């Protein structure tokens, strides 16, 4: 709270904020639980944004002014009564106003088993809402459950489907079954997770079980599968490690060819901290790239690269104008404000481009895809086609 009060006193406005709020993050996490109905308890304005991001069905109370003044309980109950029987449980996500008015949706009418996630937009960014939702879901590990969980799957992320497929493929290659997917699962499986997990995005709260490692970048993927062999006896990391070596050789070959004609690109990277840092590792390793800036949407952890949290497009624009990078990894916001740089999308939103295939960012195929896109974007730019 102390820091928040200091911020209020400093009163720095945020120009063109680009990162979704906690409410959207909570909804994203919950919407991955297939037999859980998700109700946004607030106005239509709060409903529409997550509804454009999430692939599944969402419910909303679409509150109006009288319901804020006299209480929204009846309205919530009316909405809950319309939820189809195929859902086994209901989650209600509060929004700014319902959190401020102090409504407690946990015992609405005859509904006694409501999962309430108190994640109003003012309490933080998307990752905070995701964490609060995961906390409310309270998944647990069962030592008897075989396999390995995957976490960091985020339904609003355009890489989620590709990341899931790639992680499942690698697990199968190592002889491990995929256990619970966080957050792409059912209520039952949520509470019967395996004791170990791998993550496709460690910046998102994990589910249950011990997190063994990350699948972002080849270095992390190698370390994770080596650790997996210790944590899960019976798994064999060698096929994965062999494939990583082959991928490294393939990338090294094309990167070396690129460097025979071109200077390494100066790159600015924007996104959640973990994927951004993993991309920086890949680019410096294979292309001897100069990383001129990493702007993370969330609070960054420790890394060998200097990472600054940036959620204002104005701040991002200032960095890009100052650094004039050859290459940007980020969202369509960065592409829009600095179209002269080569661009590869790694974070939401990625508007204005069509993506139909399951594109991964994690695992071996994710690393190959990233390097392929980077090299093609840089070559197109060099040819004046970028």
């Amino acid at each position, binding site marked *: 709270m102390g820091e928040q009060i200091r911020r209020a006193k400093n009163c720095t406005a945020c120009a063109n904020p680009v990162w979704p709020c906690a409410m959207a993050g909570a909804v994203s996490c919950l919407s991955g639980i297939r037999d859980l109905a998700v109700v946004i308890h607030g106005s239509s*304005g709060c409903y529409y944004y997550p509804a454009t991001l999430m*692939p599944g069905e969402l419910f909303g109370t679409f509150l109006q002014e009288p319901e804020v003044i006299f209480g929204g309980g009846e309205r919530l109950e009316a909405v809950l009564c319309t939820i189809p029987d195929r859902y086994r449980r209901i989650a209600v996500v509060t929004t*700014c*106003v319902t959190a401020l008015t102090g409504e407690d949706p946990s015992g609405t009418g005859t509904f006694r088993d409501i999962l309430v996630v108190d994640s109003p937009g003012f309490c933080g960014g998307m990752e905070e809402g995701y964490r609060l939702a995961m906390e409310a879901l309270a998944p647990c590990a069962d030592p008897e459950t075989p396999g390995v969980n995957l976490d960091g799957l985020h339904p609003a992320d355009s890489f989620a489907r590709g990341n899931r497929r790639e992680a499942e493929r690698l697990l199968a290659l190592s002889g491990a079954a995929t256990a619970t997917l966080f957050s792409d699962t059912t209520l039952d499986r949520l509470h019967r997770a395996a004791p170990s997990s791998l993550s496709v995005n460690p910046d998102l709260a994990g589910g249950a079980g011990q997190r063994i490692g990350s699948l972002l970048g080849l270095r992390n993927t190698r370390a994770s599968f080596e650790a997996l062999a210790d944590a899960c006896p019976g798994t064999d990391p060698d096929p994965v490690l062999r494939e990583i070596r082959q991928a490294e050789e393939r990338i090294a070959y094309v990167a070396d060819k690129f460097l025979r004609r071109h200077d390494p690109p100066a790159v600015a990277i924007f996104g959640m901290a973990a994927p951004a840092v993993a991309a920086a590792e890949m680019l410096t390793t294979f292309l001897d790239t100069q990383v001129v800036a990493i702007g993370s949407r969330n609070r960054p952890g420790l890394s060998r690269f200097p990472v600054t949290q940036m959620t204002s497009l104005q701040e991002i624009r200032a960095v890009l104008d100052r650094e004039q990078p050859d290459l940007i990894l980020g969202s369509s916001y960065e592409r829009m404000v600095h179209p002269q740089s080569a661009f590869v999308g790694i974070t939401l939103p990625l508007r204005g481009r069509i993506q139909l295939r399951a594109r991964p960012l994690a695992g071996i195929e994710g690393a190959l895809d990233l390097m392929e896109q980077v090299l093609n974007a840089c070559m197109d730019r060099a040819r004046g086609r970028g």
Partner: protein
Amino acid sequence: MTLKPLPSGSRLEGCTLSGALSVTTQVRDAVTVIHGPAGCAQHNLSLLHAITLENDTPDLPLLLSTDLDEGSVIFGGEEALAAAIREAAARDPPVVFVLSTCVVETIGDDTAAVCGRDWPVPVVHIPTAGFLGGVFRDGFHRALHAIAGCAGDRADGPGGVVLVGEKNLEYEVDVHGEEMRRLLAQLGARVDLRLVRGMEWDALHRLASSRLNVLREPDLAPLGDRCRERYGTPFMPGYPVGLAGTLLFLARAGNLLGVNPAEAVRREEEVQQELLSRFSDLLGSRIWNPSASGSGEDAQLVQELAAALDLQIDRHGTAVPLPDPLPVGTAGIRHLLHRWRRAIHG
């Protein structure tokens, strides 16, 4: 593909803030301050981002969020608002708009009082208050009224036509604007101001010398009335829809402009006849649109085109699209008939 179906009704008509932003962000170089959590600004920025990419417009407007967090919600956000207005004013914009959200309405911030302080640039407060202030349409209307209220006193001068209340989030907004230009040019009139689309703040005074205001939709009539009372400017209540509707628009607009519209109407009739001849291959086709059985403007348009092209309206006919809002002018009908042909022959 599954799209989330939304029941109709005012409960679902979106946020007042979004409605107001769809107007204020069309004033060039203006800064819009959104007094609330950053999420409210981000949701709307994301929407505007998608639309600017669809419309191939180069950049985003500047939204400054006061970025209220838990501390501000507890202790009040008025100082954060004052700081944001200061920051906005320091950029020396022609105008700063201040929009409130439901959060600041709930915590009781006096947004109007902060905006009423002595600022070095014009600060226009538009009370939006998210859903506590109504729905999208309310925010849209309030923003238009607030901006129109800054146009100043009646000015004499040659004056042109003002297009009032274009739907800036509409995919075809500029196509419709272009059609209005074309139609009005046939009457020798020029569009002097688009209130508000890509508008320079300095150009707002043209509202005060307008010869004719053309409202995008009839429910903007209160704004039309207000301008008529203040400036004596007549208004057309909506954009033209349909073949006959377009001719009628020209006739009425000509009369209001003091121009004999007969020649313009005759020329437009020729344009329409030529257009219909290009779609004569549709003759006798069976078409269906759920609106066709009603009696509203949409039904009238389907029936009019069916009669003009000798199409049969039949429940078992080819489903043809009808956009909402309805197509504007003769050019709108051309676009629509191409889509119908694609449906019929596709």
